[in-house]
């Protein structure tokens, strides 16, 4: 895979961001900065706001209060970001066609499109399944195809929403290896997980969310060695944060 173009999206800066859905507060006063570098991993229990934060950073939902900036822009740039949703939806087409579609949407022309499609399929180990209907893949294969589709956009920032949830160890390892390779290539990975083991294996930076609030952030090593807040200590001790 060739190196992505320098991202005009970074740093992504949240300032007092609040997201509401009706009466419910999904994110409450989030301020943070996502910089280039090792993966930032969002952890926290279900419903803590991980998905909402990823979607807001992707530019899919607008804050009810506060603001988000991408680089020096207050509107999300059209290119340079990609997201893999927790339950990716593939078009009713073959694996290769799904990738071609994404490449076309990213403005990649015909011959280049075919070359990149094959390159991406090989990258995620789906070369042999190019003509298989994408919606008939196994869970692990589907996640890898979704990753390939996201990479088709040559993102500078890649958001991953629990990409290994409900995958077995072998499939999880395949995804994590890909994430590592992508991050080593200079792509900023921002990933949500509630698997602490995965967070340890991949994170450069940890962001702990609880009830829509950012409870603790910091370098992963420090976070796991000496968590500062009571919530973080309890979460790492395996207690249920409710």
């Amino acid at each position, binding site marked *: 895979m060739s190196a992505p173009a320098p991202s005009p999206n970074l740093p992504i800066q949240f300032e007092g961001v609040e997201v509401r859905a009706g009466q419910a507060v999904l994110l409450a006063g989030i301020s943070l900065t996502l910089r280039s570098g090792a993966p930032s991993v969002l952890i926290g229990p279900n419903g803590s706001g991980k998905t909402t934060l990823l979607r807001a950073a992707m530019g*899919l939902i607008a804050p009810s209060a506060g603001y988000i900036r991408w680089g020096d822009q207050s509107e999300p740039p059209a*290119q340079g970001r990609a997201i893999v949703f927790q339950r990716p939806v593939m078009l009713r087409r073959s694996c290769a066609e799904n990738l071609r579609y994404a490449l076309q*949407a*990213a403005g990649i022309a015909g011959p280049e499109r075919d070359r990149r499609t094959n390159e991406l399929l090989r990258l995620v180990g789906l070369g042999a399944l190019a003509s298989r*209907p994408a919606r*008939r893949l196994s869970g692990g294969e589907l996640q890898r195809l979704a990753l390939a589709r996201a990479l088709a956009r040559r993102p500078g920032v890649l958001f991953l929403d629990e990409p290994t949830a409900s995958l077995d160890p072998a499939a999880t390892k395949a995804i994590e290896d890909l994430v590592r390779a992508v991050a080593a290539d200079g792509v900023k990975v921002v990933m949500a997980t509630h698997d602490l083991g995965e967070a340890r294996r991949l994170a450069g930076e940890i962001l702990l969310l609880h009830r829509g609030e950012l409870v603790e952030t910091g370098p992963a090593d420090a976070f796991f060695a000496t968590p500062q807040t009571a919530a973080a200590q309890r979460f790492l001790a395996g207690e249920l944060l409710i």
Partner: protein
Amino acid sequence: MHHATALQLLFTGDPTLLAIVRLSLAVSLSATVIASLIGAPLGAFIALTRFPGREPVLIVLNALMGLPPVTVGLAVFLLLSRSGPLGAWGLLFTPTAMVIAQTMLVMPIIAALTRQTVEDLWLEYRDELTAMNVGPMRRVLTLLRDARFALVTAFLAGFGRAAAEVGAIIIVGGNIEGYTRTMTTAIALETSKGDLPLALGLGAVLLLLVITVSALAWSVRRIGERLAG
């Protein structure tokens, strides 16, 4: 056509009967194709856009699925009659007039069914297409393409409506022998003349044709789904 049933005539290749069957198919298929070309994009557009008064539009669109054929026939008759606004085109009592009337009958059916199908698929695809920055025009094309096998059902419902109706085409076509006589208008005529065996035979042929088209469309859908997932 008095001493034989329509089925016998059909199997012996009676030219008069074959012409009636051919015209029926040509008119109803043309009308359904034209109605699809207008109705499918229209349905998709309504599925994907939110505008003031959308709910009443949906109610009217659904109601138009049950448009009475004779009313449509009357409206097209008035449009095309010599003193009507389009009278100069000289289309009244021609197969073209029949296609126009049936297109008006079928279009709301295709549009309403497409709207439902596309809206369901859009709910599924929305996040991904938005994340891929797909523009409005391509969204519509993508949804219509990926819903195409489900839309075969809408096409079928439209064709069934067109092939079965008599009220509209008898008014604007005039049931002229050898020119605008179709199976349904012939059945109406033969029944009123008291030639029940012929009317029944024609009815059987009509049923057979509708079932054949339905079986073909069903197979297309099954095979397509197997190939595309």
